[in-house]
């Protein structure tokens, strides 16, 4: 019972903290670039503003366009609530293992792309085409890096994978390092961050994700943007879970929960600072360099797999 409560608290936290975290990244970036920034609360203010605004919709938008924000949002939130953030063994984590989690995100992307095509503007189609193409190229790398971890844990279930990492003695795992790098590269691409896409630009030559949601307004736009923020937090929580789960609560007593909550926030914030650093230090890639970037991620993940077999199983 208590773990169910923790589960709901955790999902709620993921939902509520996601805009704060997006604001945190933006602020970090601003500071790194000698600007003041709008503050961590700005995404929340934006959302509130959008929620209270009227929805303007193209005259021939179909029901796909109207339902897509809800599908995108619920699929992303569903995926997020499956990922353990504080407590290792949550009841909902049984719903979907890592592969099903990726599929839930694919569902949300599918509807996003369809919504992009629905209005029939050149921008929407462009965004949909690019998003689906790059997602397809990123998928093998993502899967391969998940494979590396689940090979040693003999599981794709998040709870078991975390338990495996928590219970095995500390050792250097080159394969995990490779998998982590590949995962970080894919996570940048999946979340539409620099160097793949720039979430703050509306320049037609460079945008991918923004091009798809260009026609949205009001609460629909708010849902879409909120979903994107939740996705960012979801990915960072996933990376934390898979690669550095130390400190997560194994049982539901209050002290370890509080400790796990604090550690989770710290770890995620650390990742976000790294993201801000990376985004400040890197330039956006040319569009047709992205495939090379993603195939690089795949090669690294495959190297992880090979070094797992060569160095860690062979002995």
């Amino acid at each position: 019972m208590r773990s169910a409560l923790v589960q709901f608290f955790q999902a709620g936290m993921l939902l509520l903290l996601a805009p704060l975290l997006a604001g945190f990244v933006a602020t970090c970036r601003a500071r790194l670039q000698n600007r003041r920034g709008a503050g961590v609360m700005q995404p929340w203010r934006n959302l509130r503003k959008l929620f209270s605004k009227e929805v303007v919709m193209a005259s021939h938008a179909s029901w796909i366009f109207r339902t897509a924000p809800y599908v995108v949002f619920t699929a992303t939130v569903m995926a997020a609530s499956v990922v353990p953030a504080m407590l290792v063994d949550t009841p909902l984590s049984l719903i979907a293992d890592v592969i099903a989690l990726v599929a839930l995100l694919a569902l949300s992307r599918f509807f996003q792309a369809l919504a992009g095509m629905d209005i029939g503007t050149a921008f929407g189609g462009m965004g949909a085409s690019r998003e689906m193409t790059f997602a397809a190229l990123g998928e093998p790398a993502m899967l391969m890096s998940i494979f590396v971890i689940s090979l040693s844990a003999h599981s794709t279930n998040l709870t078991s994978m975390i338990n495996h990492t928590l219970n095995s003695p500390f050792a250097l795992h080159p394969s995990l390092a490779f998998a982590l790098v590949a995962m970080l590269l894919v996570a940048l691409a999946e979340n539409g961050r620099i160097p793949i896409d720039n979430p703050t630009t509306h320049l037609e030559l460079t945008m991918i994700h923004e091009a798809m949601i260009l026609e949205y307004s009001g609460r629909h736009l708010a849902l879409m943007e909120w979903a994107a923020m939740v996705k960012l937090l979801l990915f960072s929580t996933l990376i934390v879970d898979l690669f550095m789960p130390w400190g997560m609560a194994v049982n539901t007593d209050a002290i370890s929960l509080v400790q796990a909550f604090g550690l989770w926030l710290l770890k995620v914030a650390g990742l976000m600072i790294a993201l801000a650093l990376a985004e400040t230090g890197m330039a956006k890639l040319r569009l047709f360099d992205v495939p090379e970037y993603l195939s690089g991620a795949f090669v690294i993940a495959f190297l992880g797999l090979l070094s797992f077999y060569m160095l860690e199983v062979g002995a």
Partner: protein
Amino acid sequence: MSGFLSLDLALAACITALLAALTPILRTSTHVLRSMFCLLLVATGLLAMLSGLTGLIAGGGAMLLPLGLPWLPMHVRMDALSAFFLLTIGSLLFPVAIYSQGYLRGESQLTVLAIFMPLFVLGMLGIVISDDAFTFMLFWELMSISSYFLVAFKHENQENRKAAFIYLLMAHMAGLLILGSFAVLYAACGSFEFSVMREAFVSPVWASAAFLLAGFGFGTKAGVVPLHGWLPEAHPVAPSNVSALMSGVMLKVAIFGFIRVVWDLMGAGDFQWWWGALVLAAGSCSAVTGVLLALQQHDLKRLLAYHSIENIGIILIALGLAMLLAHYGHPMLAALGLIAALYHTINHALFKGLLFMGAGAVLHSTGMRGMESMGGLIHRMPWTAALFLVACMSISALPPFNGFVSEWLIFQTALMAPQLGGALLTAIVPFSAAMLALAGALAAACFVKVFGVVFLGHARSKEASDAHEVNDWMKVGMAIPAVFCLLLGILPVLFIPLMDGVPQMMLQVSLADSVHAHGWLWLTPVDVSHSSYSASVALLGMLMLGGVAFWLLHPKGTNVRRSVAWSCGNPHTHARMQYNATSFSQPLRRIFAGIYRAEEHVRIERNRHKLLTDHVSYVVHVGDMAVKYIYQPVDRFILFIAKFIQHEHERGLHAYLAYTLLTIIFLLAVYI
């Protein structure tokens, strides 16, 4: 006794199919004829489904038919494998028959369809229940030849005749190879009966020969790359209800044949490691090539045909994994792979049948197959669009639909790679899983393209803007597989135990206990700590979340204002400014340029002045590499030989006498 019930039902299905083929004898009006043969086919479909279900639940039986040649009586038998494929055939035939009732309205040449469509079905039903090589081949040829006539249905068109001829040629090559593999097995045991073949001992070399012959034969019929040349030609030209059956079920019958010969007759104990590796490689290759080529098609039905190649590849990936695991002595895990392959088989039958029916509905209502002149059909054909979307999501392996369940099972099987022996395999298996992931994600991209270009946006032609919704028969025909897709997607735990008879028969193990060890909600194929998936809970959760979000965000009085599209401040959009199928796949054309070798031509017309452009046209053609690098060289080689022989024949009497003399000398030298 109950086992015979299922076999009786299957025979009844065969008889109704035969009756349906005989309806044109009555010489009634086309209207009555259509209703009669569609009704009989509906009955056939229902009977096949029932027989499959009873066969899976209650087990099978065998029977000797009072038909056939005196020394070669026809054996029929019902076991878990045939029951499963009967269920697959029935569950697609049933909706397709309903759909045909509406689709064939206004069709003038009904007689050809009324004869050959039931015969085609009869062939497939017969293959599945046959229990000796003779019966098998008889029905196999019946299936091939009757489907030839269906492909050649619109024979007025030169292109269609050519497609049908290629199909006939390759179907017969396949038939010959399969016959060869039966011949090898016959040589080992001296009987055509499957029951004797099962017991026979085949030496490893001959077993490999039989495996290769069967693999290439059934592979040709299933459309495995590079033996797929006929498939994208034949499927688009057949009437859509027939394409649904051909793509949905006929390819599966080839998979059935492969499982029957390799798994059942030769037995899982005889597998050599490279058999599984070969199947795995062929599967990965087909999956990726199929979807890459599909992405570049503009003809809706041709695109779907290439996706059939992809999905056959996915099924083969699962089968190959299962064969590897069986060889290395992990029957439980091999059973998981086999179940995954079978699950994807029935899934593909359902969603591909639905996709072809949807394409048929679009064709019926707009008269077009080319995607570039469609668009905005969701407003004119809301039902078709919604049902087509279900199929698109299923084939793109998105939860909560069925395609995801089978791909998930395949990934779970691939994760068992560490259980395999050998360094190469342990790394190649994850690689093929990555190829599967790539194929799945590219399929999603492809179906965003299909749905987006055909149903969303603005109409690109007058035909598309004048489209109308199809009649109720067709809607019902499409709705049934859509419902099946959802049910198979959210209730795999109820369905997998039904299929459990197949691994029990092949591998003597049962998955039923571990699959639903945690109740009907949770699919846990190996162990709950290993992996679990529950589409029903996920769907429920999403519905609740979506409901709450909708309820919170829709306070009364805030309605949606409709206006022109914003389009970055440029509302003067035109239908031709939309992304179309060619532009959608442009990034991929560039990324995989080395594989596509597309021929691109840009023509700029400047008639008035060298600076004034009048007209720009861009033509891109992406050919099938297999055709260019395999089929055409083979074709040329055969022509060359033929020319040579023709030339040698024109030499007159002396040359012929010389040939005779040389032959005599050769025979004397060799045999004495």
